């Protein structure tokens, strides 16, 4: 608990003037009524001067209806404040420190009341849970004396945390590019071998499996030939999330920012890739470094779920740490396996991240960009930002990078559209 010295509120400023005016008017005209009015003024002036704002001793107890809810579920917060001091608090104004990442959807996180010693006041409000670990800030209590002439602000701490893990639901398959590992999987490669999709035919060689001999052709011409299919292999994918300050952009206050959407999309992609047997890792490109090496398995999924929920790199507001782009890029390249593809999640709000994407693609990590669109076209500067972003995306596409411009529709819809375009 921290105390601040009481300050004057100037609530009764001017009451002395009433006393003075009434007295001054009453004196020459000899009116008892005016003297009595002056007495009322003096009485209130004395009342304003009487007593300081009490030093409040409060304890706060927050009760969440659910401490680890699913994203977007409603959590009722019940706050109980008890006056544990010996002073009566005639005018107590409570403002709860709702975490910046949560929004109050019903009721207000405030209360105006009066509390005698040992008594409690309770108020409740509803917040909508969002991904991440949210810690409540201290409750602010403004205490006034009875007349309201003095005011003191007290902050009362009570550690309350709400942890909200993303569900990692796979909504749609993420189309991958051709870079693969030697292990079998589901990415069709240009390598001839066994598989499903036709690749080529060639002359029969000793040792070729009988099931792949083209018997129809043998019947027609008497020549033995072997059919080859495209080999299907697994890929190693690193989901790279742009968490620089420039990526924290949102069209308005209500809509989640681009990093939030990126993290959601990365969660979906992670789950989808893991279930198709690919090795998936997670990395951040921002002031707070985060690295989860590509792997498979249920334990890996649990690790990723926790990481996406409350790693400081993916918090809902930008990190205050300084960011050294070239060091971060060098460290990322050292860590990336040589056969790793990259799926970059970035709103591409500046030129720099576009050059990073080009460089990573040029180093041989085939890159797919999923770009949540934070732009709006309501005013000239916003429209300009949208045009600039469009130009950047076009340039990346011309470099052979696959780009998904993710607008307001669900990611699955955009993915389906993009997949149709790419397979043509």
């Amino acid at each position, binding site marked *: 608990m921290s105390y601040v010295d009481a300050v004057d509120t100037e609530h009764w400023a001017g*009451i002395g003037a*009433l006393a003075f005016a*009434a007295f001054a008017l009453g004196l020459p005209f000899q009116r008892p*009524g005016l003297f*009595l*009015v002056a*007495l009322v003024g003096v009485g209130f002036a004395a009342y304003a001067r009487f007593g300081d704002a009490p030093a409040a001793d409060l304890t706060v107890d927050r009760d969440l209806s659910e401490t680890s809810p699913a994203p977007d579920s409603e959590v009722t917060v019940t706050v109980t404040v008890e006056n544990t001091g010996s002073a009566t608090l005639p005018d107590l104004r409570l403002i709860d420190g709702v975490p910046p990442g949560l929004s109050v959807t019903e009721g*207000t996180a405030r209360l105006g009341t009066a509390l005698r010693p040992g008594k409690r006041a309770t108020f409740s409000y509803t917040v909508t849970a969002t991904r991440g670990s949210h810690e409540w800030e201290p409750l602010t209590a403004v205490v006034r004396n*009875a007349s*309201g002439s003095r005011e003191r602000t007290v902050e009362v701490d009570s550690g309350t945390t709400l942890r909200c893990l993303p569900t990692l639901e796979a909504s749609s398959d993420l189309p991958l590019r051709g870079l693969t590992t030697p292990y079998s999987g589901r990415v069709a490669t240009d390598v001839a071998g066994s598989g499903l999709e036709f690749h080529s035919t060639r002359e029969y060689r000793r040792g070729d499996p009988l099931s792949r001999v083209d018997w129809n052709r043998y019947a027609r011409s008497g020549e033995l030939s072997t059919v080859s299919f495209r080999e299907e292999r697994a890929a190693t994918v690193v989901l790279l999330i742009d968490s620089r300050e420039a990526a924290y952009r949102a069209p308005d206050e209500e809509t989640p920012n681009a990093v939030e959407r990126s993290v959601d999309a990365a969660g979906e992609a992670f789950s989808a890739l893991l279930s198709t047997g690919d090795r998936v890792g997670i990395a951040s490109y921002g002031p707070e470094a985060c690295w989860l090496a590509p792997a498979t398995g249920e334990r890996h999924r649990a690790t990723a779920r926790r990481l996406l929920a409350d790693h400081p790199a993916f918090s809902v507001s930008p990190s205050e740490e300084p960011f050294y782009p070239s060091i971060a890029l060098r460290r990322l390249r050292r860590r990336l396996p040589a056969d790793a593809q990259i799926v970059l999640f970035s709103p591409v709000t500046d030129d720099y991240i576009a050059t990073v994407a080009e460089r990573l693609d040029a180093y041989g990590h085939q890159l797919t960009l999923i770009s949540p669109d934070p732009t709006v076209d309501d005013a000239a500067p916003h429209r300009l930002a949208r045009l600039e972003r469009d130009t950047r995306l076009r340039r990346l596409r011309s470099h052979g990078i696959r780009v998904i411009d993710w607008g307001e529709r669900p990611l699955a819809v955009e993915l389906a559209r993009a997949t149709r375009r790419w397979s043509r």
Partner: protein
Amino acid sequence: MTEITREPSRFGIAVAAGFALLSVATTAVVATAGGAISGLGLVVLLAGLAVASRRLITNGGGILLLGALYVGYTGAPPLLVLVGALTGVLAWDAASNAVSVGEQLGKETDTMRGEVVHVVSSVLVGSLAVAVGYAVYLAAAGGQPIASVFLLVVGAVALVNALR
């Protein structure tokens, strides 16, 4: 976060308007001109509540009290003057408190309990001042009422200064 509306609470507006109306009624009974001045004060006070401006509210309260002072100057019965002035002060107090509550907690928040306590304690203090003053005035009615009330005011000022 759902934005709170930083406007005076409904309860505060109702109490302030009630006291101001009472003040206007009391002054109008004695002198129409005083009632007119107080009426103007009421309008300014309500305007101040509508735009949540403490400056307008202070001006409105001042005009209300000016009406009461004018009535006192015309030589009205002291009790009516006292009630007019007291309700004027209470209206100003309630309005000003409603604005500060609105600024800090917003219109949607439950602020009833805190505001009721504030209004009730103001009413008690004001009534005490009126009761003491009027009692002294009545007690001295046979002799020198003006001198006694004059001395009472001087004594009260001296006491307040000593308390400082």
